[in-house]
């Protein structure tokens, strides 16, 4: 490795040693290794801004959530919002990171119309959170670790709107001064899929912690993706930075496109420029944003308006003791306590709300229902219907306790699994209780041996040919009889009992 020392403006040192053959990308002239690091901007969940008492709520009328501090009027002074600092520390703890008891705010100087101060207040050499590490799961069940380089607090800028006027750009400063956490990963990511999975895991952790709502469509989370390629084992290549990618899918697409572009460029004898690019979601490609201007020179220096931020260890320890159960711990508990597969547990813990719903369904405090059955119902039937209805789990028309009620009816053989799906559909549409629907529609499973026997006797009498074939060992006909019996009982006969009685009657 000839990479330079850690410095959040130049390349970081990867903590992922060696490479996985499957992660290599085949070019025309041989395999390439992809090196990716992400800088994620996550809006801190707070009522007021980082340095002023203006509101942070999304969607307000332009410039209505702007104080004179946010508009950088002369003489205005920033005052640190305690809650934003607390949330940053909690996030650092959730990322298993070092918390710096003393951190310093710096000015990052540049001019842009949506930055009224002419500088962004950020943290440069002494961020509030240092190195950490998270584990990321891939859909195939593999997992890998990503090092966290740092997390620092900084102000967001205002919003520029370019399409409202032919000659003018409109500026709304409502976002100006909103607290952001910039979370910088080490370059430990090796593919577009891994980059998306990392961002997804980060989002999950922040949402569990309640430190960022993770709403990427509203800009609460956005990623700058640094991508380079190299021959396996050789020195790092020149990286390009793709700015402001705002969905997991786009991260993956942007990386895949950029990797292909860089490989083809190098193989054709060209060189990758160290530059900023943007991802065009419509075309699925990255484009250079480089203007003719000279390279940025931010001239960071400590903000003389702000004293260093200091906390004592007891404060940090108290926050650590009060953290919620995070996804990894919850997943392990779901596997250990409920016997779920790693895959099911992973799906259920990805969103805190889903995990809470699931646990309310199985009611661990009370009845403790069949967890695997409940996991299937939540991840298959409930997710499927929520998806079709474009609702999330907090908007589910079927409450967790109601789904629990349905599962009870399956468990005690009141209804079959097949009928249960119909009942669930009805519950989803009407919000009614499972028991009420079963009662009202007379869907109770027939477990009365005599009733089933008489149905089967009738079937055998009506279909002597099929009965003969059954006796001669044609197993296909057995299935046909079961189907007919279920049909004759509107699906309400207990299928196991039907099969048993068929066997007894036809001497199978």
């Amino acid at each position: 490795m000839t990479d330079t020392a850690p410095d959040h403006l130049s390349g970081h040192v990867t903590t992922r040693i060696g490479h996985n053959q499957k992660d290599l990308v085949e070019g025309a002239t041989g395999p390439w290794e992809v090196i990716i690091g992400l800088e994620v901007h996550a809006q801190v969940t707070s009522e007021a801004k980082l340095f002023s008492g203006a509101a942070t709520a999304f969607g307000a009328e332009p410039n209505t959530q702007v104080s004179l501090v946010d508009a950088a009027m002369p003489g205005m002074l920033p005052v640190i919002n305690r809650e934003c600092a607390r949330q940053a520390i909690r996030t650092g703890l959730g990322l298993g990171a070092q918390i710096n008891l003393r951190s310093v705010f710096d000015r990052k100087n540049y001019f842009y119309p949506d930055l009224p101060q002419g500088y962004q207040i950020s943290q440069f050499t002494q961020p509030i959170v240092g190195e950490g590490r998270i584990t990321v799961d891939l859909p195939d069940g593999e997992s890998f670790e990503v090092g966290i380089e740092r997390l620092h607090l900084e102000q967001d800028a205002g919003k520029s709107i370019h399409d409202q006027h032919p000659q003018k750009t409109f500026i709304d400063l409502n976002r100006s001064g909103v607290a952001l956490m910039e979370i910088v990963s080490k370059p430990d990511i090796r593919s577009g899929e891994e980059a998306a999975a990392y961002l997804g895991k980060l989002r999950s952790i922040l949402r569990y912690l309640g430190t960022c709502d993770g709403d990427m469509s509203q800009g609460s989370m956005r990623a700058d993706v640094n991508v380079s390629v190299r021959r396996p084992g050789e020195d790092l290549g020149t990286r390009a930075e793709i700015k402001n990618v705002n969905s997991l899918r786009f991260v993956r697409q942007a990386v895949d496109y950029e990797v292909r572009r860089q490989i083809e460029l190098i193989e054709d004898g060209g060189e990758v420029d160290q530059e900023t690019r943007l991802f065009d979601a419509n075309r699925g490609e990255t484009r250079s944003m480089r203007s003719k201007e000279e390279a940025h020179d931010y001239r960071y220096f400590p903000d003389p308006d702000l004293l260093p931020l200091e906390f004592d260890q007891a404060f940090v320890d108290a926050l650590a003791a009060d953290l919620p159960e995070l996804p990894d711990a919850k997943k392990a508990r779901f596997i250990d306590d409920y016997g779920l597969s790693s895959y099911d547990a992973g799906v259920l813990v990805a969103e805190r709300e889903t995990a809470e719903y699931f646990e309310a369904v199985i009611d661990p405090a009370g009845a403790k229902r069949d967890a695997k059955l409940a996991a299937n119902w939540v991840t298959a039937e409930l997710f499927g219907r929520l998806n079709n209805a474009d609702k999330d789990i907090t908007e589910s028309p079927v409450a967790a306790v109601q789904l629990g009620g349905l599962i009870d009816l399956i468990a005690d053989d009141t209804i079959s699994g097949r009928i249960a799906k119909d009942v669930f559909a009805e519950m989803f549409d009407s919000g009614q209780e499972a028991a009420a629907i079963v009662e009202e529609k007379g869907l109770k499973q027939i477990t009365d041996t005599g009733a089933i026997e008489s149905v089967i006797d009738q079937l055998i009498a009506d279909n002597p040919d099929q009965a003969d074939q059954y006796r001669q060992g044609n197993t296909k006909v057995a299935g046909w009889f079961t189907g007919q019996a279920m049909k004759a009982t509107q699906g309400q006969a207990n299928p196991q009992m039907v099969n048993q009685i068929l066997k007894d009657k036809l001497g199978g």
Partner: protein
Amino acid sequence: MALDTDTVRRIARLARLHIPDADLEPLAGELSNIIGWVEQLAEVDTDGVAPMTSVVETTPHLRDDVVNDGGYPDRVLANAPDAEGEFFAVPKVIE
């Protein structure tokens, strides 16, 4: 430390200041004098002293997370050279 005219031109540009070429040389001299004056501080022995961002031995006053400001777009826009509705308006900037 003496600044050359190229450096003065560059930092003027970073500060969005237009300095006529004829003024660069004298300005370089003035700035070099200022830096030289401040550089006298280097004579103080600071071995073993961590770089300070403030000489005040105190922690900052922190605010509670309460919304108690904003809601006056008219005041925010009062000094804007140009505004459209409740937006600031600036010459079109597109990268």
